[in-house]
């Protein structure tokens, strides 16, 4: 019981702190690429840890009570976590590529080597 509470506090604390850093970075950074860097990586990491807290809690309750509802809760949380981990970096990559192709430069950029490289 005590060690479960410790694990839950640690995981939820890490998750909430990293989500907070992602939101603040989204507000404070100067251009779209740095905002993407801050928000996507930090919120993905934080969401992994909040979901891990829910998974640990569900397996603990399933082990104690034997109620199969908690097993279903844990398995569905694992599926949701896998969906989140797969889709979030892919979406961020698509956004960055679209931002570059639509002609938005980083804020203090001087040269654009990616355009000079003539990528197809």
């Amino acid at each position, binding site marked *: 019981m005590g060690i479960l509470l410790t694990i839950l506090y640690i995981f939820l604390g890490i998750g909430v702190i990293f989500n907070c850093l992602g939101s603040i970075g989204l507000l404070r950074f100067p251009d779209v690429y740095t*905002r993407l860097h801050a*928000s996507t990586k930090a919120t993905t990491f934080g969401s992994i840890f*909040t979901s891990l807290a829910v998974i640990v809690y569900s397996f603990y309750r399933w082990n104690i009570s034997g109620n199969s509802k908690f097993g279903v809760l844990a398995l569905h949380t694992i599926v949701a976590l896998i969906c989140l981990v797969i889709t979030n970096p892919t979406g961020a990559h698509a956004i960055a590529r679209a931002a570059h192709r639509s002609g938005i430069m980083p804020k203090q950029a001087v040269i654009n080597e990616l355009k000079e490289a003539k990528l197809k």
Partner: protein
Amino acid sequence: MNEFFKIFIIPGGLLLIFMLLSLIRLILGPTVPDRIVALDTINTLVVAGMILVGAAYEEVIYIDVAIVYALLSYIGTLYVAKYLEGGPKK
């Protein structure tokens, strides 16, 4: 309500505050990709918060809604990015 309700519902409320912070960037954002980044962040936070709320109320249906929301928001993000990128290359 058991004793774990408060442990899971307080981080859910904090995630709601972070969603409102991202909503400021969604409204202010000078360019279109800024708004898309803010929307993507809000979607991730909604999925994380919905998992927490599902654990707090011990309801599995919230987790299912979170799975569907994650996949549909991913499709929406890809669609807007494809639109922003422009048509076929000359």
